[in-house]
């Protein structure tokens, strides 16, 4: 349309006005955008930068190699084994059922394994590798690798897992590891993040548990760049972790093996202590179990079998088992009486076979009585009445004090689980725990290690070592490899003349014809031992049972029979080792425990090997040889106990 100049002018003015207005509006919007940009990029940049890093960078922990555990000579007790496993990623596999089925045909997976792997894969994000099978043989892993094209998403991998080359030998000492549980994490104040790594293993019992912080090491870390779906694009940096520290135990693997096999078939405990240092050379609790089962994840039938066994393989009887020490406690009573000057030790006491105290009759184990006995004979023949008399003279307080001085009723600080303090019953203890006053009958019972008194085999071995050395020997399980000099052990300050009496009594126990352990004497020069037997009552034979014709222990069911105990040290003139044996329900200390004590003592003196026949009295040698042959078959061959550390 043809416009006049005025109209054109008007149109131009309108468009200019509105155009400028629009321009201003647009400038305003652009200014807002610029302001927002500045706010985000300059004021909040740091915050967004952090968010971006979190987005992009993924910190992964590299599990440290767990420290090794050696025996005193460098024999490996706990090591790390290469473990071939197969992992699988869902997003690479495509049809996971098909791939799993092929894999199952190749390496023999159970339906359970397949189901678990399937579940793990579906639960995790698709790029997370899931372990399908572990502990594969070289052949199996090679066949997986060879068939890789048919197995998309499947990768053979190598990892380390704990293994115990000596199997059951040190199960109770070294313990075992297992996957970290919620409970483990709760128990720790500030759990190391490495524990969160799936399938990371933590010490569950024994040294493995108590020294876990040493053995665990420090995790390394790897920073990787991931993309939006979490797939690793590249490694940014890597800090290698520190492997866990190695530990050296005082245990002698060879002796430990011998001791455990010598206990074979019994529910028993044997402790061997190096007298000058307190080093625990052997800490055997029979029957034992294979800790490797726990590392792999024990099957429930295996676990029930261990739990249901009436010989309680899972219990470490050496430090956890509480037994009335019986006659092995008599040295304590004797020393208490000597210290109290209640007797000079040469004075004799008449034993008619029983003693009446406060209206109760207390029997001597020999019904006919021992006649007149001094302290030495009372110890060697284990006369009960003599100690009933001495205990009444010196009183329970003195016995408590001597007991503590000899290391009973004390919880030793050892790096193993469930170390018990035993029980050194005092008047105060009875008041607090039994809500009753201490009676004279309690003192009489305590004098022969019955009644309330409870001790662990380790405590009995420490007591024996203290008697043998007159030093405050403390047991020790960890060896400091840097420690060259022998430890200085404080003196116990028992008068030599008292100890001469006690040691004479223990010597005659084994080496005098009338001694209770005479049949377990050692005849080879320089290895003669001194000891003390003990038989502690678990249940007394009831009147009803007596009337039913049960008079002898053999007639009782196994779990009601008496415990058999034996403590000894050798060589008698220069004690090097102290030994304590407890055979649960072994019936008699002299018959069941003393022979084991003798064999283990001899083995300890002979570097853990089967003792030479010449150490045994000639008439016993044929029988002992037969026993040794049977035992040798069970012993671990020397190559299994080779020193692996330089």
């Amino acid at each position: 349309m043809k416009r006049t100049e005025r109209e054109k002018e008007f149109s131009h003015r309108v468009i200019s006005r509105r155009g400028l207005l629009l321009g201003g509006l647009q400038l305003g919007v652009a200014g807002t955008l610029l302001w927002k940009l500045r706010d985000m990029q300059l004021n909040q940049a740091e915050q967004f930068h952090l968010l971006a890093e979190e987005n992009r960078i993924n910190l992964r922990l590299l599990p440290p190699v767990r420290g090794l555990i050696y025996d005193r000579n460098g024999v490996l007790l706990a090591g790390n084994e290469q473990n071939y496993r197969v992992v699988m990623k869902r997003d690479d596999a495509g049809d996971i059922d098909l791939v799993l089925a092929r894999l199952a045909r190749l390496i023999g997976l159970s339906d359970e394994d397949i189901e678990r792997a399937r579940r793990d894969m579906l639960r995790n994000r698709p790029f997370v590798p899931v372990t399908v099978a572990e502990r594969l043989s070289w052949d199996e892993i090679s066949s997986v690798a060879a068939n890789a094209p048919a197995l998309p998403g499947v990768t053979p991998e190598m990892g380390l897992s704990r293994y115990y080359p000596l199997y059951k030998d040190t199960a109770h000492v070294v313990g075992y590891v297992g996957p970290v549980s919620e409970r483990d994490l709760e128990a720790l104040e500030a759990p190391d993040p490495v524990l969160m790594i799936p399938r990371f293993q933590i010490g569950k019992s024994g040294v493995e548990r108590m020294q876990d912080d040493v053995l665990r090491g420090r995790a390394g870390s790897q920073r990787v760049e991931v993309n939006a779906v979490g797939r690793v694009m590249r490694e940014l940096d890597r800090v290698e972790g520190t492997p866990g520290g190695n530990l050296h135990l005082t245990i002698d693997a060879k002796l430990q093996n011998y001791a455990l096999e010598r206990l074979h078939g019994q529910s028993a405990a044997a402790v061997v202590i190096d007298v000058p240092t307190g080093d625990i050379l052997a800490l055997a609790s029979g029957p034992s179990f294979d800790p490797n089962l726990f590392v792999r994840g024990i099957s429930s039938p295996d676990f029930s079998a261990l739990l249901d066994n009436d010989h309680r393989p899972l219990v470490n009887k050496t430090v956890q088992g509480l037994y009335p020490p019986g006659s092995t406690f008599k040295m304590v009573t004797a020393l208490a009486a000597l210290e109290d000057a209640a007797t000079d030790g040469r004075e004799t006491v008449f034993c008619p076979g029983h003693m009446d105290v406060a209206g109760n009759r207390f029997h001597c184990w020999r019904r006919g009585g021992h006649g007149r006995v001094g302290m030495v004979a009372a110890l060697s023949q284990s006369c009960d009445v003599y100690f009933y008399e001495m205990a009444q003279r010196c009183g329970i307080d003195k016995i408590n004090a001597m007991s503590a001085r000899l290391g009973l009723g004390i919880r030793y600080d050892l790096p193993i689980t469930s170390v018990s303090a035993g029980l050194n019953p005092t008047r105060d203890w009875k008041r607090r725990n039994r809500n009753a006053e201490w009676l004279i009958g309690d003192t009489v019972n305590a004098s022969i290690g019955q009644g309330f008194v409870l001790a662990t085999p380790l405590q009995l071995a420490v007591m024996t070592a203290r008697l043998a050395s007159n030093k405050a020997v403390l047991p020790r399980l960890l060896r400091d490899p840097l420690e060259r000099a022998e430890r200085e052990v404080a003196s116990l300050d028992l008068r030599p003349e008292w100890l001469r009496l006690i040691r004479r009594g223990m010597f005659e126990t084994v080496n005098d014809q009338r001694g209770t352990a005479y049949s377990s004497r050692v005849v080879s020069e320089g290895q003669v031992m001194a000891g003390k037997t003990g038989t502690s009552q678990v249940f007394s034979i009831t009147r009803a049972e007596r009337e039913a014709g049960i008079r002898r222990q053999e007639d009782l069911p196994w779990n009601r029979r008496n415990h058999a105990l034996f403590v000894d040290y050798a060589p008698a003139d220069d004690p090097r080792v102290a030994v304590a044996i407890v055979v649960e329900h072994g019936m008699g200390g002299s018959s069941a425990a003393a022979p084991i004590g003798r064999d283990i003592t001899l083995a300890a003196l002979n570097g853990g090997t089967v003792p030479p026949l010449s150490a045994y009295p000639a008439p016993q040698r044929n029988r002992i040889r037969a026993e040794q042959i049977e035992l040798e078959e069970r012993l671990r061959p020397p190559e299994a106990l080779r020193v692996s550390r330089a």
Partner: protein
Amino acid sequence: MSYLEYNTRRMPAGLAKVLYVNWPLVALLILVASYGVVMLYSVAGGNLHPWAEPQLKRFAFGLVIMFVVAFVPLWLWRSISGLAYAVSVLLLLGVEFFGSVGMGAKRWLELGPLRLQPSELAKVTTIMALAAFYDWLDLKKTSRILWVVLATLIALVPTLLVLRQPDLGTAMLILLGGGVVIFASGVHWGYFAALIATGAGLVTAVLQSRGTEWQILKDYQYRRIDAFLDPTLDPLGAGYHINQSMIALGSGGWSGRGFMEGTQARLNFLPEKHTDFIFTTLAEEFGFVGASSLLILYMMVMGVCLLSALRSTSRFGALLIVGVTGTFFLYFAVNMAMVMGLAPVVGVPLPLVSYGGSAMIVLMVGFGLVQSAHIHRARLPS
């Protein structure tokens, strides 16, 4: 401006037109497009493929188109405006019935080997039609209700057709582009006040209709609205794009992580990193310096075009320039607001920078019209 008005004495003709081209505008457009090529090279991991090289070729082609359009006399454009508009509406109807579905939306029309996106075409033709309409209309009738309704219908028809595809972003651009022309033509204020009030009512209606049988928008569009209102609600779902975009953008800081060092885009945290979210990559790698310089460049394009419009004595030409640049402004303003979390995620590319064919060619055609208006503006008597 009709042919009769076309005063050959006062208009450049032939090769002389080259001298009258708005060269500052050409330089600015090349600068803006080079930002795009550089960023596409970066997001491809330092590769000309698959984006940078085609983009470069396309821009070169776009420049040629721009000059061709520029040298065509403006009166010719004015006279075919109505026809172009009619064709693009027909093509939009064609999409409605014969279009192929891509990304959950029908946007393409396949004519043999040619894939056409009529909604892009409609952006320019709507502006052309409205500019021509107001050029034709008696100035006194500009604010009469009948004619305002007619102008509104011209803008609304393609808008509704695009909205049905559904393509919220383009529909909005067409509507607002048309609105800018109507506004610039001098229509009375009252209509715009009424429009804003209606718009507010419509938004309320859209939000209120949700979940009912007469729900206006698609579910995914509602979810985008939700994500916009609070992106933290669902950082892995609907709000993911905005969240990731804001993280990448904010982490750029003053000078950015450096060329090709943008981690978020390269590691695929950013969706659509080469198209709608390319500004984020720019902001991440070149920081505030890079991002604000692009914004300033865009505003310079606006300024140069506005000057050209102010100096144009042709009503059609001036309205055309205001309309095209208004659409251009909406492109980058909405896109930037979107990646900064100020606007919902609607598929609006960053003009001349984002990877994409149709949008760039159509924009270059638009700038060709701007150039044509500039070249063929009536010389003011000196």
